[in-house]
């Protein structure tokens, strides 16, 4: 009987061990992902006998067409596949950080620009360092490369084009309403009133999606907050020596957004507004303007075609009290590879493949934008030429988000509340408190 007990116990423990071992197993994708298999170079080597599937994580606010084209070429050349995972744009940072903290590393991911992301992701411990990597920096404009450097190290490879945020408008609606690009902010409000009188919706705001109303503040910041506080003010914000509530020009931005709502210049049911509906309504000629980021260009191209974007989509910056304002630009997004990624070496080779001149041009052919690579060609839409003109004229400024290390956490929630209540003091206090909370959570000096 004793013997029987011992055998039963051994079988039970064996089964348990087997089930635990099964839990710890991989998904099989990493079969050929050993450094020796993948480090041979995706760009140089012929098709892999043990192809791997790489995971590429991207925000769902990004148009993926251009990436897919490059990945198709990569698959053809190497046999490796790239599985694209689109995460919600509003929560992208949080989702990436959560995946990092649980050890669920993607092989490659696209992150917003700026060295502040290094702090966010504890780059020195978690990410691959690129500064000495061959085949990466050959064609990247030096100014773009330098913007990636912190403490002589680079953890993100810039990819894409110089971005922009501002007021995107439907030229045809402007024409029908008999208005032109505003000369200053008061003018913007006046033309919005005329557009409304002509039977169109002057502004569309995607409050339901939460993130779009923030664009109003980022674009307004470079036009009216930056000139007031200067670089020293930004440095103080970085050290937590200046409070948001103590910046009158920022408070004025809240007042301006409130004024647009009170003047009924947003769409009906503004709280239910979504990014997707905004594109549809603007494309259908029902909406005149939206404070928006440049992702709208490719989205409108997909929905309404290249001709529509060429002929109908216009851009102007957030106007100041006295002039047309300053264009808000964003550095290109960056590709990052976690050191502990299952297919790290294959991911590094994929980045090198993406940076090859032919593939860069393939990318721009499918996602035209202001290039960041020497020798790259991109056919720009008029709307992008408009921004380039501002950049060339020195009338552009990088997004404040890319210049501060702490983030505007839950700003979208604050703005949803603000749209409901219209309480400027409460909104700016909450905005500041959440900024400080994030600085504290990131253990930044001064917070």
């Amino acid at each position: 009987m004793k013997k029987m007990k011992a055998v039963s116990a051994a079988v039970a423990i064996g089964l348990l061990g087997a089930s635990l071992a099964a839990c710890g197993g991989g998904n099989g994708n990493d079969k050929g992902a050993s450094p020796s298999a993948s480090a041979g170079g995706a760009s140089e080597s012929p098709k892999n006998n043990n192809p791997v599937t790489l995971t590429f994580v991207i925000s769902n606010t990004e148009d993926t067409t251009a990436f897919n084209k490059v990945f198709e070429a990569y698959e053809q050349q190497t046999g490796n596949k790239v599985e694209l995972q689109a995460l919600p744009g509003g929560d992208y940072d949080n989702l990436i950080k959560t995946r990092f903290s649980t050890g669920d590393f993607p092989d490659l991911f696209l992150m917003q620009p700026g060295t502040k992301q290094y702090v966010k992701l504890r780059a020195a411990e978690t990410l691959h360092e690129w500064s000495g990597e061959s085949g990466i920096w050959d064609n990247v404009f030096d100014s773009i490369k330098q913007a990636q450097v912190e403490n002589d190290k680079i953890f993100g490879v810039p990819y894409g084009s110089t971005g922009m945020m501002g007021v995107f408008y439907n030229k045809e609606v402007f024409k029908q309403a008999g208005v032109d690009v505003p000369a200053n902010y008061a003018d913007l409000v006046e033309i919005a009133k005329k557009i409304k009188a002509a039977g169109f919706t002057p502004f569309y705001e995607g409050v339901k999606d939460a993130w779009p109303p923030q664009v109003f503040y980022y674009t307004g910041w470079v036009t009216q907050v930056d000139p007031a506080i200067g670089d020293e003010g930004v440095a103080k914000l970085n050290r937590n020596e200046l409070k948001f509530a103590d910046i009158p020009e920022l408070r004025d931005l809240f007042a301006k957004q409130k004024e647009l709502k009170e003047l009924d210049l947003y769409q009906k049911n503004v709280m239910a507004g979504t990014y997707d509906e905004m594109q549809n309504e603007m494309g259908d000629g029902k909406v005149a303007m939206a404070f928006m980021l440049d992702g709208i260009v490719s989205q409108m191209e997909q929905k309404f075609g290249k001709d529509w974007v060429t002929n109908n989509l216009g851009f102007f910056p957030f106007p100041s009290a006295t002039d047309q304002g300053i264009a808000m630009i964003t550095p290109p997004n960056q590709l990052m590879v976690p050191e502990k990624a299952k297919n790290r070496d294959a991911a590094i080779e994929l980045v090198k493949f993406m940076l090859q001149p032919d593939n860069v041009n393939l990318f721009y052919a499918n996602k035209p934008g202001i290039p960041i690579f020497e020798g790259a060609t991109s056919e720009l839409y008029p709307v992008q030429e408009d921004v380039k003109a501002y950049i060339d004229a020195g009338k552009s400024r990088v997004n404040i988000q890319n210049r501060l290390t702490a983030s505007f956490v839950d700003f979208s929630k604050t703005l949803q509340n603000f749209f409901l209540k219209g309480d400027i003091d409460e909104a700016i206090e909450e905005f500041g408190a959440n900024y400080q909370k994030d600085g504290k959570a990131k253990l930044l000096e001064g917070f």
Partner: protein
Amino acid sequence: MERRKYPLYFSYPAVVVFLLFFIAPTLIGVYYSFTNWNINADSVKFIGFDNYAALFQEPRLGKALSNTLIFAAAVTVLQNVIGFALALVMNESIRMRNFFRTVFFMPYVIAPIIIGYVFRAIYHPEHGIVNKLLEGVGLGFMAQDWLNDPKWALFSIIITDLWKVSGFAMVIYLAGLQFIPKDLLESAAIDGANYWHRLKNIILPLIASSTTVNILLSLIGSMKVFEMVMVLTDGGPGYTTEVFYTYIRSTFSMGEMGYSTAINLVLFALVTLVGLPVLAALKKREVEM
């Protein structure tokens, strides 16, 4: 006749799994709730009750707590009322009974994310079927922005959740109803008991164990609500439909693991505090057949 018992060591694998994957993480969680564990920090330090002190000063917690309790109370009561009513009807000899049973149970097996997207369209203030229907029958004045008006948002989430879970309660009640001997009900009817008397004095006492299971499951499940809120409103507009888990998620994603674990333990304590007295009260009502 003495029942032959299985040897105790047969339970060891299950006990090991339970200890390893439930008890141990829970105990580790209790420890971490007293630390400053942060994904941006190099070390983890014991900080006593600091997380709990900070937690109870956070205004968002109050809103999350009240919303969670309102949601749990409404869903627990209504899920059981609707589930029981459906079970009574589906226990009768009606045409296409199995078809209707399947239809009522089906929402339960649909992923919350899909339900959320479908109901976002249904509740849309301009294009949604709810407002269109109200306008169609001349009740246009009752049309609302169901998910984006703070007055209606939580209510709309509750209705959506009820649509999903009532079928599950129905199945449990149906199982209970089918265990009631028919001759008992027939003899009561012969003795002159009307439907209400049979329901009150025979059916309800005899399905008390189903009621216990249903109420407990719905209470615990609804206090842990997350996906439905996440996909329908993401706790918004603003923080107006914030529940415990959306708040926990937001603090976790800021990297404040120790603090988030403390909130989780508060929810654990809350579920236990509410669940145990309810269980004790319901157990008293159960009768053996």
